[in-house]
């Protein structure tokens, strides 16, 4: 079994995770991600008698709260937390017209 992922494999998961990776980081992650993934892979061998799944320890029926108007956050404060903003708008680079 290889002790590292291929460069392409690392770049693929980095793309999924929306994280840019430098050439120098790439080599480190080839080894480290492989170590974690080998550990994660062991889940396949665990035997269970039941297909029953537990998403969280949560037994109460899901109940939504009443749909009533309540307090809301101040939009000015919310927008104010954005790293780039102008008036009531959050600024982002041009999206329309870009090639996908």
């Amino acid at each position, binding site marked *: 079994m290889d002790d590292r992922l291929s460069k392409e494999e*690392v770049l693929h*998961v*980095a793309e*999924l*995770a*929306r*994280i*840019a*990776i*430098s050439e120098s980081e790439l080599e*480190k*992650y080839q080894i*480290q*991600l492989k*170590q*974690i*993934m080998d*550990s*994660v892979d*062991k*889940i*396949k061998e*665990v035997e*269970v*008698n*039941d*297909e*029953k*799944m*537990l*998403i*969280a*320890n*949560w037994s*109460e029926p*899901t*109940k*939504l*709260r009443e749909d009533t108007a309540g307090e809301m*956050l*101040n939009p000015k*404060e*919310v927008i*104010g*937390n*954005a*790293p*780039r903003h102008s008036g009531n708008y*959050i600024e*982002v*680079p*041009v*999206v329309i017209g*870009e090639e996908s």
Partner: protein
Amino acid sequence: MKYLNKSVLELHELLKDKKIKPIDLVEEAFANIEENKELNAYITLNKEEAIKQAKELENKEVDNVLFGMPIAIKDNIVTKDLLTTCASHMLENFTPIYDATVIEKIKSKNMIIIGKTNMDEFAMGSTSRTSYFGSPLNPWNKERISGGSSGGSAVTIAARDLPFALGSDTGGSIRQPSSYCGIVGMKPTYGRVSRYGLIAFASSMDQIGPMTKNVYENALLLNAIVGKDNKDLTSANKEAEDFTRLIGKDIKDMKIAVPKYFMSDIVSNEVKLKIEETINLLKNAGAVVDYVDMKYLDQAVTLYQVIALGEASSNLARFDGIRYGFSAENPENIKDVYFKTRQEGFGTEVKRRIMVGAHILSGENAKVYYDKAMSVRAAMRDEFKRIYKDYDLIIGPTATTTAYAQTESLDDPLKSFLDDVLVNPANMAGLPGLNVPVGFDNSNMPIGMHIIGNDFDEARMYQLASYIEKELNLDLTPGGEK
């Protein structure tokens, strides 16, 4: 005059009798923190606001036992107008615009927030060394780690800076540093405490809990933070109860199980010996203690990795460089905003975990890994429930060793998971877990016992922990009582 070495009940009496004022406690807490500055327990201090609040309290009636008490908050719990960084470059300058539900609750008791404590970045780690702001140091020996991820909270309590702290626990992050630093730490039952305003790591396991120097004060703080919250639909609809009510009660005939795996050769001899001594103490008190077989505990690390990393990759998708937090300079396009912001904003441990999580959840892998993990998780919880048919509580060591050296390498990506092998089953099963100190190793580093309770059985855990605390009567102040 020093007051904070007194018990909270004594302080409460002094406050009620107007012999001291909240400002005395607040000033003393800041003086202690200043004296212990090199421990690096804090990321942000709330000095101005805390002093202002303490002065305002002078004209108010001392109406509850937590009134005027200083408290430290882990820096992944949002506090209105007070920097909340998650120990990450990503949130280095993030000032929340609302309070977490637990913060509203402690403020309603007129507790005073002293500062925000150091931690592993986004609570990912077992040593607090992944913090963007440097590691906290263990007050018992500054060359050793504090444990993590709630390392700063554990350190400030152990160093006796102040009486109360909040931590969070996704896979052991309250209990393991509590063990390494010799304090009491409780991870409540999943749903017991609202997660609203706790910056999410793995939503199906995250819980906020109290960290204190003794059992009674831990229960007092838990009393204040529990309850149903409409802002967290996984918070449980439970009647209010007094978690101190069984403290001091006899433990005769209590039935306790010790899973054999918890005492297997993954645990160091010194730790094992101390736990065995404590077990004998319980037997002598008339408790029934049996060693039991439990399946799936040896799969805990693998299972935890699938659940925690999968959920983390989804939760941390919100850090996009657009809505709040750090954003990379001069992006060429929208993709650049995401990719560069996350490259520069997150540290190595966080990036590793997000990438593996993204892999686990992508396409067919979601079935192979995540669905399978949910089945193993159900089976693990069934195992716990099987034990609780015959036993009241489950015990074992909290950590396999005592706190190790700061210099130990951070490059092994599996080490931080292995450190939590004994504590993360409780998170996956949603059960409450508590650390209580039971002694020291040959280097005078604290050893902790882990008590796992049935769902919502925290009061009984405190009962057992208080018995152990009283019988052992350890001096848990680093360097001896002052």
